[in-house]
């Protein structure tokens, strides 16, 4: 007996009889075949969460279960694609339906017409198990994509053939008859297994000075990035998508603006990856569910993005996942929970909110992945949050803070001063600074940890002094304190702030970050010494140093040396010019 719709309310549909189905089975609802997922089973009646617009869906229309959960199709050809929340490529959906998204589109994730040259790396007779590499294809020029035995599959290779194949073509068969194709499927809600989790001691280098220098995150770590509107969350996410050091970037636009996606799509293809010299779109995968697209798919979009990231991790890649915004994802949970009549928790969110947020963040990690040859991969997760009214005490931000190892808190006061990235150094934190220190020492200089400590304490002292100044005025301060204000101002305005629109400043290599920070700290140290030796505060070359450092910030890499030399000379002169004065005084 065909199951039929008995009730439609918003994105939830009830259908009967569905006794044979399982929870989370994917179903096709109605004559147009809207995609949905079973979220509750009670007797004959299944409650289905529908990922597409239900307007026009009528009682009595047929419902068909696919007998499988929502899965991602994982294989070569994902790089450069733009998928909706359930994995349909939006460009091909547009080819079918036109410029506006209509429900019921049928489009598989991987392009059925694209072919890859597969080169087998195993021989018949080889014993293989989940994660083992059976061959290679070149997914993009220079990007070798190993073809894996899917997790939980094992056996002896009976046949394997090199040649030109599509994603769904069989390239090998096991002795028990199981066929291996270039791509395989995996349920999006289930984390993919690894061999062993590893500690992250290599930083995820963002190219943003304030983040790399003060609040580094390790590869495989996770970050909560909360900020009210206008604090620059999206610009940071976009900067990371462009400039962070990762092999693959998965960008999840969850409940956000359509024009921002247009922006990403206009910019990424035109920018070159500084490491590979190839277009940045070639390392990116976009999962897009804008704020006016169906709410249920928002929830799925985050899981889909993470599953794709885990797959590339299993290939041995270092993957960054940028999710903008987890708050919209949580709101989708709230909306669906309310429609299901679940007992609400804090602020109407489901009582499972914190557990579910925890599970999302915990899909990040660095691991020795399964299978031979041995390889490691990492998923670094950055979750943007949009707290109502910019108030971080709300449940979604709080739940994220409990599980994220790093907090990049965005501050509206900094944003109002057009200090970008508006990362508040007083409230942000990182649990990865020590673990990653060694890498920074090896890649910049011995004094990186020391500079970092000194900068932090300079900023703390600056905050105290600025409170005092607000009461008594700057003229009432001691000269050494005025020096702190000036040095901290250099740190704030030149080292920590960065222009994402200046082509030479948008990405700051760690050496450049080190150079600027070292100059600021040297200015403070040597300025203090000069003051002690009797130099007048007014004679410190603050203006010229600032101007030189501002020029350094936006100078091309090959002009840095000369400017740094000049800045250093200025700082050194502070020590020297005091000497004759002192002698004259004696």
């Amino acid at each position: 007996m065909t199951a039929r719709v008995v009730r439609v309310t918003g994105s939830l549909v009830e259908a009967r009889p569905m006794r044979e189905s399982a929870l989370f089975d994917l179903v096709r609802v109605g004559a147009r075949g809207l995609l949905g997922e079973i979220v509750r089973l009670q007797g004959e009646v299944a409650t289905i969460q529908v990922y597409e617009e239900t307007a026009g869906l009528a009682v009595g229309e047929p419902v068909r279960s696919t007998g499988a959960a929502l899965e991602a199709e994982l294989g070569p050809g994902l790089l450069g694609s733009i998928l909706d929340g359930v994995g349909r490529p939006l460009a091909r959906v547009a080819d079918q339906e036109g410029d506006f998204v209509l429900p019921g589109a049928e489009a598989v994730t991987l392009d059925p017409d694209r072919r890859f040259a597969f080169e087998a790396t195993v021989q018949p007779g080889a014993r293989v198990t989940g994660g083992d590499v059976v061959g290679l294809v070149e997914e993009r020029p220079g990007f070798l994509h190993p073809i894996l035995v899917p997790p939980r599959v094992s056996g002896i290779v009976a046949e394997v053939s090199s040649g030109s194949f599509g994603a769904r073509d069989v390239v090998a068969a096991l002795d028990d008859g199981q066929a291996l194709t270039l791509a395989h499927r995996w349920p999006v809600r289930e984390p993919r297994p690894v061999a062993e989790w590893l500690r992250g001691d290599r930083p995820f280098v963002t190219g943003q000075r304030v983040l790399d220098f003060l609040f580094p995150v390790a590869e495989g770590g996770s970050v909560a990035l909360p900020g009210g509107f206008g604090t620059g969350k999206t610009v940071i996410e976009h900067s990371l998508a462009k400039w962070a050091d990762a092999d693959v970037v998965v960008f999840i636009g969850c409940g956000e603006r359509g024009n921002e996606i247009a922006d990403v799509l206009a910019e990424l293809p035109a920018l070159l990856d500084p490491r590979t010299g190839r277009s940045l779109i070639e390392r990116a995968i976009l999962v897009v569910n804008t704020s006016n697209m169906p709410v249920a798919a928002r929830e799925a979009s985050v899981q889909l993005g993470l599953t794709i990231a885990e797959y590339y991790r299993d290939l041995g890649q270092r993957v960054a996942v940028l999710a903008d915004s987890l708050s919209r994802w949580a709101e989708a949970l709230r909306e669906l929970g309310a429609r299901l009549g679940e007992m609400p928790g804090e602020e109407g969110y489901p009582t499972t909110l914190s557990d579910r947020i925890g599970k999302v963040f915990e899909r990040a990690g660095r691991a020795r992945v399964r299978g031979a040859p041995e390889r490691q991969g990492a998923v670094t997760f950055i979750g943007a949050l949009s707290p109502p009214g910019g108030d971080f005490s709300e449940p979604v931000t709080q739940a994220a803070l409990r599980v994220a190892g790093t907090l990049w808190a965005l501050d509206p006061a900094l944003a109002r001063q057009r200090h970008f990235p508006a990362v508040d150094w007083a409230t942000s934190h990182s649990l990865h600074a020590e673990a990653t220190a060694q890498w920074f020492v090896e890649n910049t200089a011995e004094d990186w940890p020391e500079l970092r400590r000194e900068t932090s304490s300079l900023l703390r002292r600056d905050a105290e002094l600025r409170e005092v100044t607000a009461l008594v005025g700057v003229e009432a301060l001691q000269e050494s304190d005025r020096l702190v204000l000036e040095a901290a101002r250099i740190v704030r305005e030149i080292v920590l702030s960065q222009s994402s629109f200046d082509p030479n400043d948008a990405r700051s290599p760690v050496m450049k970050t080190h150079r600027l920070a070292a100059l600021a700290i040297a200015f403070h140290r040597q300025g203090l010494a000069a003051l002690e030796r009797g130099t007048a505060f007014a004679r410190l070359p603050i203006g010229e140093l600032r101007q030189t450092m501002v020029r350094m910030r936006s100078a091309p890499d090959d002009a840095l040396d000369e400017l740094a030399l000049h800045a250093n000379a200025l700082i050194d002169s502070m020590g020297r010019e005091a000497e004759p004065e002192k002698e004259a005084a004696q």
Partner: protein
Amino acid sequence: MNLARAYHGASAATGPLLYVPRTHRAAAGEWVVIRAPGQPARRGQVIDAGEEITVVQVLDQTLGLAPAKAEITLTGDIARAVVGRELLGRALDGVGRPLDGLPAPVGEALRPVWGAPMNPTRRARPADFIETGISAIDGLATLVRGQKLPVFSGPGLPGLEIAAEIVERARTPRGEPFAVVFVGVGITERETREFLRRLEQSGGAERTVMFLNQARDPAIERLLAPRFALAAAEFLAFERGIHVLAVIADMVHYCETLREIGAARDEMPGRRGYPGYMYTDLASLYERAGIVAGREGSLTEIPIVTMPEDDITHPIPDLTGYITEGQVVLSRELHQRGIDPPIDVLPSLSRLMNSGIGEGRTVREHRKWADQLYALYARGQETKLVAAIVGEAGLSAADKRARDFAERFERELVGQGRTPRRLRETIEIGWRLLEALPREDLLRIDEATWRARKERT
């Protein structure tokens, strides 16, 4: 979908909701007509379609409606709006019925009022500068075609007047077809008349279509008015190649109706009683702005939000700000000091500004010019606060310069009065303010820009 089916009598009614038993193949969103003896027909929509009970949301006053006597017709169709160029010059109510005494428009087509989301891969990036004639906007929070840029006003502040000015002056640079869609949501007769008067004076009435749901009209219609209007706007923009500017005033009335309906449906309330899905609902209006790649027209939205108690963290401006591409914020303090228009530059922002300015669009130095003005104004404003505590003596010379700059900036650049300015004038005024300061105060102006300016003048 189905053919029309009629049922006699609803089993229950609460507020705007009717519960109709045992309907046949009711569809989500199905359009409903409710007739009662001796009363005009009411319209409604299925919000919960079921075998046993179907819930209909009535979109007119339910006062005097006896559920047992009502004849309820499920029409077999969803809500559709008459759209077409013929609507230009017309004044319609919130659901598209004429208010101007002329016959109902026949239109070129019928379009679902709920619309469909634009495929993100088919969006073109908005990049065409719209000159509004208002210095604070053109210079520092530039509007571009296809953007959604709300005006955050306060009770008694001239939010609607500023929108009217933008509508009057915004012309297309190369003379492309241009139209205005004005949606009055719960605004007063006086506000409506004033807006109309200005439009007629500027000669823009014949390229304007108005959808008016005034304060005295049924509240429930407020949810439909912007959707009927946007359906019309989308058609003009994307199917007739017209550059459309849609002004929606006032979003606060819209959100209040949303809250009212949520309460009637016994929904779990979110912050301040507004429904938890308000973000999604607002997005379904705001996100209809944009440009479709390969098509001629564009849809730009300027919603007006009167912030309750001037509070920008109130859920309505807050959720709006999270969806829109920036905001123009009005300040009571500036208004009281007679700065007109009272635009507070510091919290105002256009997220799409960068793609619409610069060489070939506005002027080459636009970004740096704006950053420098902004930075100095921010510093000046901060100094004013400090000076209030520590007195004149505690200020450094640079602080004093910034403070004086802020005063002049408000008077000369922001407070232009009601005379429109060309962008070139705005830029020139800004430069004059900057050039009154020593070069060392202008660190955001790089050497090349500075020299180029010197050579020109």
